[in-house]
């Protein structure tokens, strides 16, 4: 040292070093949780593999535990079909609304529509199920009296799930479109493109990965959904016949778990088979979430600075792509016929036709895209003459068009065949195709201004439909629930098996569950979030923690319930108990809390930290005194929202804590409780003649959740007002 004043060495046990490991240990709890969840599912599911045989389980066509047949195919089909239908319903509406909100709506309208969307994403699924059961199911029965005996059906399930997935799809894809740099829009408009042309050709293509991710997240949410589906699909474990008959009842994996778990003997083959189902469900959701993650990562790269050049890859199927189009058509026709004949060996005519058509359409799309890519590759590598390149692109767009038309034909035919015989349906589908082809030239000649007008007004209609559905839901519950509200209702005990009296114990139970969840999840979640944003470096252990959080976040709520039951209620022997419910709910909201905390903390500007560190504060001091106070509003908002989510969840508590009736309020952690969402489910599905009570319960639950939202926005507003950077 030149000037003699020593700086000294840092103490080995300086609190900065110690705190780092303490925080890391707490953040690792998530890893432990997910490890135990998977462990319990595997251990409990292993028995079924031995008893039933994995092949038999995965290929069996009958699910009848009472007769000893455990075939998962009807349940997997049910899950896939309901989800597919939900996406078919939600995607056009959701995407249209997102485009409207992001690109068409004036600022003031956008500021109303966006928060509405977010509120609807927070409404408990049991409320959606209730709405489906009370309003939608009778409506469908009225619309299709010949096809729907009860109204509960695949169709009803898909619509309810679709409505539930809508807010997610709208909000995430709207974010993706907002994130498209303004400069792209300006560049397009500056060249005289209309708003619609800009949207269609620049904004949507640029945001396509985000939109895809939104769709996948919506699918993920729909697949793991339990309560709403269980209430409206009829729950018959059968495969629809024909396969696309959306009037049939069906049953999903989640519904099976929720329906059969409470009554099953622990340790039996049936018990074990349910865990195997849960494993399949988790794998499905994980695969979907992983796909979303990959797509999001790719879209980040696209807007990042290090843009990858678009070098098309060499394809070994090039001879197929570049064959003359007549040959390609012949190939496709052969494929169609041979697939139909082949699959006739295994399934009936309609199923093989549909299989063949779907594969054929896929093949056409594949060839269209492939020939374009390979022509780009050859252009890039070998300098393909312009003329050839032009021919190829024309060829491939022709292929694309015919694939679309074939797809439309099959779709129309399938739907029509549910109502009338095969010949007439084919005729109807043919007429639709002819109409489309005939109107195409007229559409092409239309001026850009007219196209914009038509596009924008159809978008407006779409948004109007969505808003009307959502408003109808709230209006129905509020208008019919208000008369039920009285002091007796709020502070009374249920009477006459739920058809009279009040819901006091359910309200108290829900509050108890929330407080317990809060006490477990908040410290864990906040500390983990702080660790991840302030301390964690990009090491292997950090990646493992993040991966665990992602998995936990994607785990369907019914699986948490299953875990709670196996690990707490049975293994630790708590029985149905408040504490078991709180722990299960806490695990479920933990990833949400960690994420929102992390985001709020990261949003604190670097300059604040540097200012503090530059004055000699330790990292821990900086975190506690500067960073957290600055991020306080954001953290609290996240906490309140997660609590609102916990309040409305049914599946995790229905086999860990909730019972249908309690005659007194108990403060013991080991007693079971009543809870609003479970009470609503119980009344709506098992107690006829309790309509008023149902609406009252639904309204109280809704108000509770909306209150949380209101509180969160107040906090956010105050915080935004006080702190500006």
């Amino acid at each position, binding site marked *: 040292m030149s000037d003699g004043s020593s700086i000294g060495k840092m103490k080995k046990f300086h609190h900065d070093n110690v705190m780092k490991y303490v925080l890391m240990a707490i953040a690792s709890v998530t890893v432990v949780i997910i490890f135990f969840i998977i462990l319990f599912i595997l251990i409990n599911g292993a028995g079924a593999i031995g008893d039933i045989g994995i092949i038999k389980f995965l290929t069996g066509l009958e699910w009848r535990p009472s007769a000893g047949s455990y075939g998962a195919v009807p349940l997997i089909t049910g899950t896939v079909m309901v989800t597919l239908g939900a996406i078919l319903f939600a995607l056009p509406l959701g995407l249209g609304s997102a485009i409207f909100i992001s690109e068409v709506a004036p600022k003031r309208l956008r500021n109303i529509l966006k928060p509405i969307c977010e509120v609807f994403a927070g409404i408990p699924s049991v409320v959606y199920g209730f709405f489906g059961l009370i309003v939608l199911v009778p409506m469908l029965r009225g619309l299709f009296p010949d096809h729907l005996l009860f109204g509960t059906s695949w169709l009803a399930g898909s619509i309810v799930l679709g409505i539930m997935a809508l807010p997610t799809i709208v909000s995430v894809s709207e974010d993706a479109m907002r994130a498209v740099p303004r400069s*792209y829009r300006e560049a397009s408009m500056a060249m005289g493109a209309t708003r619609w042309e800009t949207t269609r050709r620049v904004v949507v293509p640029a945001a396509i990965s985000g939109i895809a991710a939104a769709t996948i997240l919506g699918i993920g949410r729909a697949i793991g959904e339990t309560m709403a589906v269980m209430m409206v699909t009829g729950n018959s474990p059968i495969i629809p016949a024909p396969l696309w008959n959306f009037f049939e009842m069906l049953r999903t994996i989640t519904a099976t778990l929720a329906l059969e778990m409470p009554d099953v003997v622990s340790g039996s083959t049936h018990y074990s088979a349910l865990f195997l189902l849960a494993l399949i469900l988790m794998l499905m959701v994980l695969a979907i979430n992983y796909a979303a993650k990959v797509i999001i990562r790719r879209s980040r790269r696209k807007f990042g600075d290090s843009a990858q050049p678009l070098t098309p890859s060499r394809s070994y199927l090039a001879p197929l792509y570049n064959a003359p189009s007549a040959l390609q058509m012949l190939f496709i026709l052969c494929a169609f016929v041979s697939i139909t004949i082949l699959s006739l060996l295994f399934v009936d005519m309609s199923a093989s036709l549909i299989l063949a058509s779907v594969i054929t359409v896929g093949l056409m799309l594949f060839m269209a895209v492939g020939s374009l890519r390979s022509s780009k590759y050859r252009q890039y590598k070998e300098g393909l003459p312009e003329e050839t390149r032009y021919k190829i692109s024309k060829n491939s767009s022709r292929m694309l068009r015919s694939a679309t038309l074939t797809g439309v034909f099959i779709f129309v035919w399938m739907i029509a065949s549910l109502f009338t015989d095969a010949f007439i349906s084919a005729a109807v589908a043919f007429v639709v195709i002819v109409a489309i082809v005939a109107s195409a030239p007229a559409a092409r000649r239309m001026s850009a201004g007219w196209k914009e007008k038509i596009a924008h007004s159809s978008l407006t209609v779409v948004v109007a439909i969505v808003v009307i559905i959502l408003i109808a839901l709230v209006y129905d519950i509020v208008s019919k629930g208000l008369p039920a509200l009285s002091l007796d209702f709020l502070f009374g005990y249920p009477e006459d098996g739920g058809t009279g009296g009040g819901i006091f114990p359910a309200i108290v139970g829900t509050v108890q569950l929330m407080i317990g969840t809060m006490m477990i999840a908040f410290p864990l979640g906040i500390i983990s979030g702080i660790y991840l944003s302030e301390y964690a470096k990009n090491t292997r252990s950090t990646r493992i923690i993040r991966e665990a959080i992602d998995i936990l976040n994607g785990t369907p709520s019914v699986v948490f319930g299953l875990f709670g039951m196996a690990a707490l209620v049975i293994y630790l022997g708590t029985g149905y108990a408040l504490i078991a419910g709180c722990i299960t709910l806490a695990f479920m909201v933990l990833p949400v809390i960690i994420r929102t905390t992390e985001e709020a903390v990261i949003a604190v500007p670097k300059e604040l930290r540097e200012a503090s560190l530059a004055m000699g504060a330790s990292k821990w001091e900086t975190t506690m005194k500067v960073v957290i106070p600055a991020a306080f509003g954001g953290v609290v908002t996240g906490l309140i929202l997660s609590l609102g989510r916990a309040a409305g969840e049914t599946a995790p508590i229905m086999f860990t804590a909730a019972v249908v009736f309690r005659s007194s309020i108990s403060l013991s952690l080991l007693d079971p409780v009543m809870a609003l969402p479970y009470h609503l489910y119980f009344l709506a599905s098992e107690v006829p003649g309790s309509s008023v009570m149902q609406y009252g319960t639904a309204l109280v639950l809704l108000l509770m959740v909306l209150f949380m939202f209101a509180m969160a926005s107040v906090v956010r507003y105050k915080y935004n007002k006080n702190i500006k950077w």
Partner: protein
Amino acid sequence: MTDTNVMDIEGFNLWYGDKQALFDVAMNVRKNKITALIGPSGCGKSTLLRCMNRMNDIVDGCRVQGKMTYHGQDIYERGTDVMALRKRIGMIFQKPNPFPMSVRDNITYGPKIHGITKQSELDEIVERSLKQAVLWDEVHDRLDQSALSLSGGQQQRLCIARTLSINPEVILMDEPTSALDPIATAKIEDLAVELEKDYTVVIVTHNMQQAARISDYTGFMYIGRMIEFDRTERIFSKPSDELTERYITGRFG
């Protein structure tokens, strides 16, 4: 001098919400000349430029009043075809903003919007525009690569080529070199001078030397007002306004 006016601006005011950003601005744009707008940050030069092809329309709460004509036609008249206007008056932005598409698709975007579908014609346009923007030699062998893989200067010239692809009459440039290094800047300046033969250019710049080097006319703006508008030599040799003189001699800015 027989310069004809492409645009005439008189008594032009603009508000963003309640805040007035332009006060009684008057100037004109002469055909096949480069007109520069200079002034300190926030003086309204970009705002004025963005009015010339109505790009301010997409800003919420923006309101204008006064006369702004293009070949004698008031562009703020009700019923003006804004798309057609922007086709005639293109714009280059401060930061290069190529679309995340290939180089080729960036160029053909405009022509396709305006109804050209023939491949041979499009290919011609790609080559012509890139040549005009002096970019052809650098990118002709990677037309199908992402435009984002080009350097900043190349990206900006690509944006210029993209604008040229639809044959505008006027090109508005909003500080086109502020995000570029000196070498790329020099190339863009050369290009602007080159373009002057066929196009009319209006350029906003905070760089006085740039204005002096390339422009024929210069307008000096200050807090939303056009303080002085004249031939560039005059502005830089003997400005009539004291404020202008103080600015160009670097006493504030």
